[in-house]
């Protein structure tokens, strides 16, 4: 008998407690970063505001990513299917957002600006987490 293993291997995820680490990275780290920057280098927030924004955004993304990658209490095949569905929804919404954003700018008479990649990724991760949670509740 041949054993099917190649595509049946479960996706490697981080242990469940990474959810809490992710939350800490997402909420505490940007706050700590902003507070320490303000205390140690007060001028930096004004002169290098873009760099400070970038670090805070990246910490948010890293936190959301850790939450996304952490295991559920029981990681079975239905949970894997829900993960896939939530990922599909997040991807679909991101595509709609990218297409519709310039149209809305035109409708409201605003200037069309280039979309920020970090913003799209952050939205995708956030939508994924929300829909994964909702799908789990509805299963």
């Amino acid at each position, binding site marked *: 008998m041949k054993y099917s293993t190649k595509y*049946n291997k479960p996706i490697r995820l981080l242990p469940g407690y990474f959810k809490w680490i992710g939350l800490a990275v997402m909420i505490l780290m940007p706050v700590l970063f902003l507070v320490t920057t303000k205390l140690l280098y007060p001028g930096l927030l004004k002169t290098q505001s873009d760099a400070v924004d970038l670090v805070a955004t990246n910490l948010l993304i890293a936190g959301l990513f850790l939450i996304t990658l952490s295991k559920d*209490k*029981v990681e*079975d*095949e*239905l*949970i894997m*299917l829900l993960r896939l569905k939530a990922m599909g929804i997040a991807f679909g919404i991101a595509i709609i957002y990218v297409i519709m954003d310039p149209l809305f700018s035109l409708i409201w008479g605003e200037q069309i600006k280039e979309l920020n990649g970090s913003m799209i990724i952050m939205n995708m991760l956030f939508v994924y987490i929300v829909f994964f949670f909702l799908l*789990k509740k509805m*299963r």
Partner: protein
Amino acid sequence: MKNIIKEERTKLNMTQQELADAISVSRQTINSIEACRYTPSTVLALKISDIFKKPVNKIFELEKND
């Protein structure tokens, strides 16, 4: 796809949680399978048939639109 998991489980006096623990899935997964919201994989179906000591095609039955 229809299934008789609930009936078989009741015969064995088993709770959803006990069945879930026996085949390493969550209680909600068993609930979804019983309510025909989710069709399990072959591996899971075989594990269930092993618990109930019945062939898979006696536990799961295809419907017209499957």
